[in-house]
């Protein structure tokens, strides 16, 4: 306990010296409100449809305020708007009970994420993520859902596994990361650098950016690419081997 008290004393002293408590309090309050709202919605405490719609409106209002008051240019505002759309899609994925609605919320989140990649100059990565994630992975999931999901919601869909503990864990992790990342001097860049044009040159055009990425992948990161290819081969063989219906398993299954 003495070690804990020493840690608390040091953190308090550092906090008072660096004036972090207002920022920490704001972050903790926002995250606590979000976590409490999530828990109340999932645990069945919050049943009023009007309150849920008011919460959604509040989230949208916060998004609009952040985008309008952003000090950057149009690109930064678009980036923040896409971030809010992605967060809304992810929240829909977590909250919605039906698996198809949840998968569609995930698809919206991934598509907004790909939009943010295009705005940050990662053109190939945006296209590749859209093809692999929002294309292949989600379609595979929807196939398996169509194969395995009944038409009505099952008890497994309606029941939640300890939403209070999950909300607390998520709130602590999110508050810690946001607190560290939004510290004033963490990323040594001037405001001009911070709000520079996002599509500035790694290379003058999108085409040359993709060419540069390909060159880097095949020269600096060649071993990584080869290992990724080997991993894909192993995963393909493994998936086929696992999902094959062998003779004895089909006899013993009811």
């Amino acid at each position, binding site marked *: 306990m003495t070690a804990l008290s020493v840690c608390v004393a040091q953190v308090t002293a550092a906090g008072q010296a660096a004036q972090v408590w207002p920022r920490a309090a704001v972050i903790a309050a926002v995250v606590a409100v979000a976590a409490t709202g999530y828990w109340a919605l999932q645990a069945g405490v919050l049943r009023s449809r009007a309150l849920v719609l008011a919460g959604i409106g509040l989230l949208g209002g916060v998004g609009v305020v952040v985008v309008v008051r952003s000090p950057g240019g149009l690109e930064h505002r678009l980036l923040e708007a896409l971030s809010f759309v992605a967060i809304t899609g992810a929240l829909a994925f977590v909250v919605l009970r039906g698996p198809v609605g949840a998968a569609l919320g*995930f698809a919206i*989140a991934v598509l907004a994420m790909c939009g943010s990649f295009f705005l940050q100059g990662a053109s190939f990565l945006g296209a590749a993520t859209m093809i692999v994630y929002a294309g292949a992975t989600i379609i595979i999931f929807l196939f398996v859902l169509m*194969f*395995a999901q009944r038409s009505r919601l099952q008890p497994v869909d309606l029941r939640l596994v300890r939403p209070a503990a999950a909300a607390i864990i998520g709130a602590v992790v999110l508050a810690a990361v946001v607190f560290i990342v939004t510290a004033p001097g963490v990323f040594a860049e001037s405001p001009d650098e911070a709000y520079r044009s996002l599509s500035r040159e790694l290379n003058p055009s999108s085409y040359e950016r993709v060419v540069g990425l390909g060159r880097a992948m095949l020269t600096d990161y060649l071993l990584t690419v080869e290992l990724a290819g080997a991993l894909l081969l192993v995963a393909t063989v493994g*998936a086929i081997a*696992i999902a094959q219906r062998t003779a004895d398993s089909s006899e013993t299954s009811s």
Partner: protein
Amino acid sequence: MISTMLVFGAAIFVIGLVGFLTRGSLILMVLALETMLAGVIINLVAFSNFHNNYQGQVWAIMILTVAACEAAIALALIVSLYRRKPSLDAHEWAQLGESAVPPLEPVSLEVPAAPPPLPTLTPAGLDPLVDPQPLQVSDALAASTAPDAKHSQGAADV
């Protein structure tokens, strides 16, 4: 600003984490894992943009590869599990026993001090080391292995 994108990435990651912890359906748990990987990819692209090089983007491509492989294997496993029991509930598989199989009896782990006596046969016949007997050949065998009857006519000539 990069911190905006890092907060966005952290939010997506934490939402995926909460979804993984609270969901009970196997498919939605794997989708929550994919959401967590998406949050990491957002962070990597933000750092690639900040440092003005390709490291973050190459790493993000590798994470996409790993995510695709993981989704394929996970769904193959889910399909094989679904063939055993037509349910997507993760808690159905919490107990790995099967209800139709009777429980095993507890096995005693004691080791006997002396080995149990092995069964033996009563020996039949004479012990060749104790009572050696000359080799006795039957008359029929002696007659067949003597000089052959076919050659016996020519034996006198030879």
